């Protein structure tokens, strides 16, 4: 994905964190710094939905993407925190990302 400074705004740097076992899919690294384009091809701002696809295409180092994604959203059982708050409070997939956001993905799908 080109991080061009296309007209409409600056690229959006965010921090993405994986815990609860998800880090295994991403090279065993918990924290990742990601920069998203200011605008997508269709003119809209990148949202969580877009971020998911982006992560799978660019950051995932494992074949088992169904541990993270199901259909077009996160797999049920994976919690998403947007700036330390439940994503359900922020609009879930539709939340538009802003510079400096921290998104945490926590998997609950393992033994206790």
């Amino acid at each position, binding site marked *: 994905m080109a991080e061009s400074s296309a007209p409409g705004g600056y690229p959006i740097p965010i921090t993405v964190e994986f815990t*609860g076992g998800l880090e295994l899919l991403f090279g065993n690294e918990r924290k990742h710094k990601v920069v998203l384009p200011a605008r997508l091809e269709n003119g809209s701002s990148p949202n969580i939905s877009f971020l998911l696809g982006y992560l799978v295409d660019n950051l995932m180092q494992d074949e088992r993407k169904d541990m993270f994604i199901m259909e077009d959203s996160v797999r049920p059982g994976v919690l998403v925190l947007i700036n330390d708050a439940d994503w359900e409070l922020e609009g879930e997939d539709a939340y538009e990302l802003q510079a400096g956001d921290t998104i945490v993905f926590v*998997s609950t*799908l*393992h*033994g*206790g």
Partner: protein
Amino acid sequence: MAPHICQLCNTSRAQILRPKNHARICAPCFIDIFEREIAETITSTNLFQPGERIAIGASGGKDSTVLASVLKTLNDRHAWGLDLVLLSIDEGITGYRDHSLDAVKRNSVEYDLPLKIVSYEELYGWSMDQVVAQIGKKGNCTYCGVFRRQALDRGAAMLGVGHVVTGHNADDVAETVLMNLLRGDLPRLGRATSILTSTPSATMSRKETEADGGEVTITNVKRSKPLMYAYEKEIVMYAHYKKLDYFSTECIYSPEAFRGSARTLIKNLERIRPESILDVVRSGIDMAKLVPNAEGHPKGAAEAVIRNEVEDEAEGGCGGSNAKEVVSEMAQMEQKLRQDEQAEEAGTETEIKLPSKVLDGQRHDRDLKPDLPPEAALTTYVQGQNHDRHSQTDGQQLPSDIRTVPIRTKQEKKSSRKATRDAPVPKQRLGQCERCGYLSSQAVCKACMLLEGLNKARPRTGIEVG
């Protein structure tokens, strides 16, 4: 989207949306209410006695870590005077258990709780790695399950503890309810939805155990699940906001288990309507109340349940007259069912053992005509008697005025039922395994039998020359 304000303190930004009631609250309020609800569960069910010694089954995973943290917090805060210790089982699974045990050790230091690790190696002479190397990846969960159950009881007895708590959460219980519904295993429902279970001798012979100086033996250990009404999501959030240190990976030997299907259903259901998880748990409790106990009366599932009680009625023809016989058969059934459950979950074949035959966990009831509707497979057990002949084998519907739910375990007792109907009731005594002393109705308990099989096939190592 405008930020929401916490509905409890009306001050801070809301960070959590509670699944059970859609409440929007901030992290500090969440931590507070989460802890209060667990305290409420514990006090309202009289789960603990003041000064009781409690062993926390600790795997290093999210549930047991949160359990240890919350119990420690509440014990200090409310001065319950509980004597808490961590009890961990080392199955000997490299790459999985060794890492999670590191997490438990850190927990032990962090919460300042003594830690006891009991390993399969020391108890049985076999680690799970060795078992799998010997028997392959099919059926290994059976061994692990049978061994772990004993290991927890033994570990508790070694510590002189009569009460083990585990981190089972609402999602776990909901999954179990669903699993048992899907398999038609209603007796098991009663135990799955009870917050406290105990072995028969715990309720039967308090006096005897006290006469021994109150010594805890492996036959009278209670088990409970204080987190039973806590959502898995909230447990994870609690651990996240309190920055608790836990370990999170699946057992490397775990195959596609049946529980996985139930879990997927529950998770998808949670997506649509999160309150459903607790609703399923409550439904399970209600359904369990309809399951008849040994006397044929529906029992309440919310009370302390005799651990093997409901298995009793599965034994056709045992009559339930002598409590000791009843109890011994229960213990035997319990172990068999546990084994079958493990095998079922592991998707492997269950062990075929005369006289009771179970093939692939299926019932093979010769009385059943192939063209009958599925309900015909259910037989009514009242007072331990098999009422096959009176039930729906003629294809009729259950009369709607029957309050009790017909039950049938997976364990097919066909051949043994026939034998016991005709032959005198076999006398079984609740006793101890002659090899290891564990509670068993047989001369040799299940774990020892499995071990015998393992040891016989064990390749000779270390051929020494010179």
